[in-house]
């Protein structure tokens, strides 16, 4: 055996695969206890690793299982030698032990080998007392479980005519039935050779029996009975029985009795006590150590008797079979010349010590007490964490046992998963006893102090990232596991693991700089400080805005934010902005817009909606761009920024603000030119617009005053300002003359931000004005009333209207119409009609201008040339008949010698030619408003 062990060790280290393949020939054994048939050998690979976020994770493979099949093996014990008188019957007790790994049955046969024995039969001996249970000849054992035994007796008769000396032999054969099947080959057979010796003297047949064949440790009393019969033809003297009590049993003092002296006579255990009984039927009984000795004076032919004594099975011993065999000698011819017989064994009598399962599942630091309410506690863990508990399973039984590990129940948050691992904390606990339940593997008996009787089972609870935080109302979160004996499934013990509290992940949103304890580190203090705004707590960091940016309407201002992952595990965060800070429904100030951008080399990069994965303790710089719409009234508006983990719900809200500056800006357009006859008048339109974000010209305090100045005032030129009160685009009787715009002006309610009002300047030429005289009328709008929000009045604005005196009298009426689909043809759906009023058009739409030139004088107007240009932010639209530059006149001398290219900007020249008094010409051209 030793040499095989050595070769196996070399195999494991040196020869490896090659020798392993050599094992195909069956020349090498590996030495570990072979499992029972049907045992599943499971295996599962695993790994721990670090993912991209820096978190340690565990993965396991599928399980592969190897199922062990049955093999036959047995032992037949033992060859026997017995004396027999002529005409007597001899009994040979035997035991067959099934050494295979599965239940098997065995064929039995007994046949004369040499000599004269007849009537050879095999009888069952279930009580193993060496005496047939009955006289039914058997040829098979029936089913014998793996590791179990079958007892039987071979009986044979020595013919009466046989004379000593004579010896007969019988061959007893057993054959495994399983080995005779294809799966169990080769056939396995074992034999014993029994010998019967014929004698004319005394023949003492001694058998041994036991009162109970099995029991757990502590079974008591167990009575052994030694029965003897002199089946010979002479008196046996000095019949001596010795019986060594097996280790694991303890003799019960004063328990011995002899059938001759009766049950009332206690046989003395002492070696110094005198012989008991009445001569010649005497007995000298004693016990020395654990061996009893009984010397019986004589046993005459045909006499029988028995000796009994009691033992107890020791506590705590392992499951095993305690075999007890007594030996006896005697003088077969009394005072004759035949020497005493050699010590002859009785039939072996087994006592099976049964296994008792006891288990303690507990805290490794506790006392390994079964059925105690053991508790393993961990104080706190964060959302998404893996909580590791270590449980101890101790085999307190008296035999090797395997303990299935199961989860009984738990109060952890929904979504928590649990898994058992081996003691290393990484290898998954697998099933080793073929019931699909992970187990401890075989643990040896003996309790905590014994070798290999304790196993540490690692239990991991995988908390969901959105696990409910808190301490579960003070109860914590518990998971109960049960360790159940594989030997006796009714025996189990539970242990409870408790997590005191689940804490939430945290995130800190800071302005301008990252936290000092984050990576890369900034200068913002850690904690719930107002400078960093850590956490969303009313009355604390949110009582006031942390950072307030000043900006003008129509501009974009940027806040620099840092998202600091202050948790111990990685997380991702979504970014959001809200006007009221409750983030119930995200809303923003009207027409305000907020976008977040990542940081690319210290400048805003792409638009983002979240941070992506932020490893534990790291941060990310984010730009929050807030766009304030034009004309937004002055004041401070709060902007709340939030970083929210969609998985853990960890969040932080930052309160910042935008202060919109006061802007005062008045615009007046445009400069005009016209012609007038002496004594006539011409009307020019001007638009006054409030380009600021506060009310102007409402008298509180702003007041706008128009003033007019004529370049030829000394020659009698004069002008008046009218307000297009009814908004019809032309000067009529309903339009009042105005000078001052304030609350005193009837129906005037001021000029709101982005509001435009039309005013007319009507210029009168003196009668004596010479032809080609040019007068310039300057209209000035001056704002007064003092500062608003400390912002001074806007600058003075003015326009100049140039009027030329002509003999003729041409009037020009310029109108516009929307060409919505820009096809250059009016009349389509969405197109408008010509009007002198303001129109609203979208970028990409077109406008067709119509200029009507009328000779309102009383003489011909000749060689009329009209000039115009594409307005700012437009290009010439040469698409269709209505928008192509054209002149429709009564004369034949019409042309458009100058015009821009299609989709280009530039000047137009229209040669109208001559117009008789009252005649008109129509000029058209179209433009397209620049697109986005």
């Amino acid at each position, binding site marked *: 055996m030793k040499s095989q062990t050595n070769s196996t060790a070399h195999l494991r280290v040196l020869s490896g695969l090659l020798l392993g393949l050599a*094992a195909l020939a069956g020349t090498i054994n590996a030495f*570990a206890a*072979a499992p029972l048939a049907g045992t599943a050998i499971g295996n599962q690979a695993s790994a721990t690793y*670090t993912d991209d976020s820096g978190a340690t994770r565990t993965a396991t493979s*599928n399980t*592969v*299982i190897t199922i062990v*099949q049955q093999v036959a093996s047995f032992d037949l014990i033992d060859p026997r030698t017995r004396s027999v008188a002529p005409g007597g019957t001899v009994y040979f007790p035997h035991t067959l032990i099934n050494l295979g790994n599965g239940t098997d049955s065995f064929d039995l046969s007994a046949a004369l080998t040499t000599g004269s024995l007849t009537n050879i039969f095999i009888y069952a001996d279930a009580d193993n007392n060496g005496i047939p249970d009955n006289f039914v000849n058997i040829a098979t054992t029936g089913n014998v479980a793996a590791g179990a035994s079958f007892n039987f007796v071979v009986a044979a008769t020595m013919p009466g005519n046989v004379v000593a000396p004579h010896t007969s032999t019988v061959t007893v054969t057993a054959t495994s039935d399983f080995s005779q099947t294809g799966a169990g080959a080769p056939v396995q057979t074992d034999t014993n050779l029994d010998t019967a010796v014929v004698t004319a003297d005394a023949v003492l047949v001694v058998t041994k029996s036991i009162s109970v064949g099995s029991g757990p440790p502590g079974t008591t009393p167990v009575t052994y009975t030694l029965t003897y019969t002199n089946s010979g033809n002479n008196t046996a003297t000095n019949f001596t029985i010795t019986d060594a009590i097996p280790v694991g049993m303890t003799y019960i003092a004063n328990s011995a009795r002899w059938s001759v002296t009766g049950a009332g006579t206690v046989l003395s255990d002492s070696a110094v006590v005198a012989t008991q009984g009445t001569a010649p039927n005497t007995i000298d009984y004693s016990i020395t150590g654990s061996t009893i000795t009984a010397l019986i004076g004589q046993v005459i032919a045909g006499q029988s008797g028995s000796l009994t004594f009691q033992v107890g099975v020791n506590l705590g011993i392992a499951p095993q079979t305690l075999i007890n065999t007594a030996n006896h000698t005697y003088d077969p011819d009394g005072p004759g010349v035949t020497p005493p017989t050699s010590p002859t064994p009785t039939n072996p009598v087994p006592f099976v010590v049964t296994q008792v399962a006891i288990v303690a599942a507990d805290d490794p630091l506790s006392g390994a007490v079964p059925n105690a309410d053991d508790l393993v506690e961990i104080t706190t863990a964060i959302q998404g964490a893996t909580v590791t508990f270590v449980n101890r399973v101790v085999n307190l039984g008296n035999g090797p046992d395997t303990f299935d590990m199961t989860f009984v129940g738990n109060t952890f948050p929904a979504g928590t998963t649990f898994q058992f691992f081996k003691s290393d904390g990484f290898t998954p606990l*697998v099933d080793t006893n073929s019931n699909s339940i992970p187990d401890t593997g075989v643990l040896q008996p003996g309790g905590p102090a014994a070798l290999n009787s304790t196993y540490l089972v690692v239990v991991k609870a995988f908390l969901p990232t959105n696990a409910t935080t808190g301490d579960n109302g003070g109860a914590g979160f518990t998971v109960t596991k049960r360790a159940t004996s594989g030997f006796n499934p009714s025996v189990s013990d539970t242990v409870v693991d408790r997590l005191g509290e689940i804490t939430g992940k945290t995130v800190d949103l800071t302005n301008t700089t990252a936290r000092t304890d984050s990576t890369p580190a900034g200068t913002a203090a850690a904690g719930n400080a107002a400078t960093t705004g850590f956490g969303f707590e009313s009355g604390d960091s949110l009582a006031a805005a942390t950072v307030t940016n000043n900006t003008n309407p129509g501009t974009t201002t940027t806040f620099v934010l840092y998202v600091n992952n202050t948790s111990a595990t990685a997380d991702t965060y979504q970014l959001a902005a809200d006007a009221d800070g409750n983030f119930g429904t995200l809303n923003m100030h009207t027409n305000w817009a907020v976008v977040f951008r990542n940081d690319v080399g210290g400048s805003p990069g792409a638009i983002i909606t979240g941070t992506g994965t932020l490893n534990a303790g790291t941060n990310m710089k984010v730009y929050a761009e807030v766009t304030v719409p034009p004309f937004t009234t002055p004041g401070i508006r709060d902007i709340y920024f939030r970083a929210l983990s969609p998985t853990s719900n960890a969040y932080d809200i930052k309160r910042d603000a935008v202060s919109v500056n006061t802007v005062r800006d008045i615009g007046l357009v445009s400069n005009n030119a016209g012609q007038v006859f002496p004594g006539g008048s011409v009307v020019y339109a001007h638009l006054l617009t409030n380009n600021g974000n506060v009310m102007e010209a409402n008298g509180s305090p702003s007041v706008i005053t128009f003033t007019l100045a004529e370049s030829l005032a000394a020659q009698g030129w004069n002008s008046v300002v009218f307000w297009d009160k009814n908004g019809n685009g032309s000067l009529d009787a309903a339009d009042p003359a105005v000078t001052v715009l304030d609350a005193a002006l009837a129906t005037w309610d001021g000029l709101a931000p982005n509001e435009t009002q039309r005013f007319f300047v009507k210029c009168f030429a003196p009668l004596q004005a010479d032809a080609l005289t040019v007068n310039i009328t300057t209209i000035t709008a001056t704002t007064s009333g003092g500062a608003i929000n400390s912002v001074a009045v806007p600058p003075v604005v003015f326009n100049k209207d140039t009027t030329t005196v002509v003999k003729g009298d041409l009037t020009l009426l310029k109108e516009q119409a929307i060409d919505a689909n820009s096809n250059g043809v009016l009349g389509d759906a969405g197109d408008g009609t010509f009007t002198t009023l303001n129109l609203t058009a979208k970028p990409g739409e077109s406008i067709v201008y119509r200029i009507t030139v009328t000779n309102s004088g009383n003489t011909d107007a000749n060689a009329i040339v009209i000039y115009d240009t594409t307005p700012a932010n437009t290009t010439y639209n040469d698409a269709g008949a209505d928008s192509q530059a054209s002149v429709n006149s009564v004369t034949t001398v019409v042309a458009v010698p100058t015009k821009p290219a299609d989709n280009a900007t530039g000047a137009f020249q229209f040669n109208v030619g001559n117009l008789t008094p009252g005649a008109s010409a129509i000029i058209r051209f179209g433009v397209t408003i620049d697109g986005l």
Partner: protein
Amino acid sequence: MKYSARIGFFVVFLAISQLGLQGQPVVASEPLAIKLTVAKATKDVSGKVSWLPGEQAKPGDTIRYTATYSNQSDRSLRAIKAQVPIPEGAVCLSPSADPVPTEASFDGKTFLPWTQVQEQILQAEKTSEPLEIRIVRWLVPEIKARQTVELSVSALLTTQQP
């Protein structure tokens, strides 16, 4: 007389999914996926050795566990501790491990460097209690995105009668 039987165990290999095994949760979204297979060494009439999965084998045969570690994510995984247990009923054939493992454990709890493990096995040869490797472990520094690493170790089925 005890019948001396050295061979006679037959085993059947059966690979099953871990689904349905009590206490064995499956996380479908794990970046690292592990597939374990087992095969038996056989020789044909010419003596050529081949590995056949899912077949019967006798005690004393060599079986090989092959674990394939696949990074299913788009990012590298690092510091992988990959381990394959050697179950009860089988004896690890150390030189067969491919690649050479980093460490191993005799008790399933503590791990020793691979060279030290080999030395201790040889030393234990001189005693009556040979050492048996229970877990083989490889330390893989990195598995890049969408790449796999294959690790294998062979074992000998035990034959001793109970």
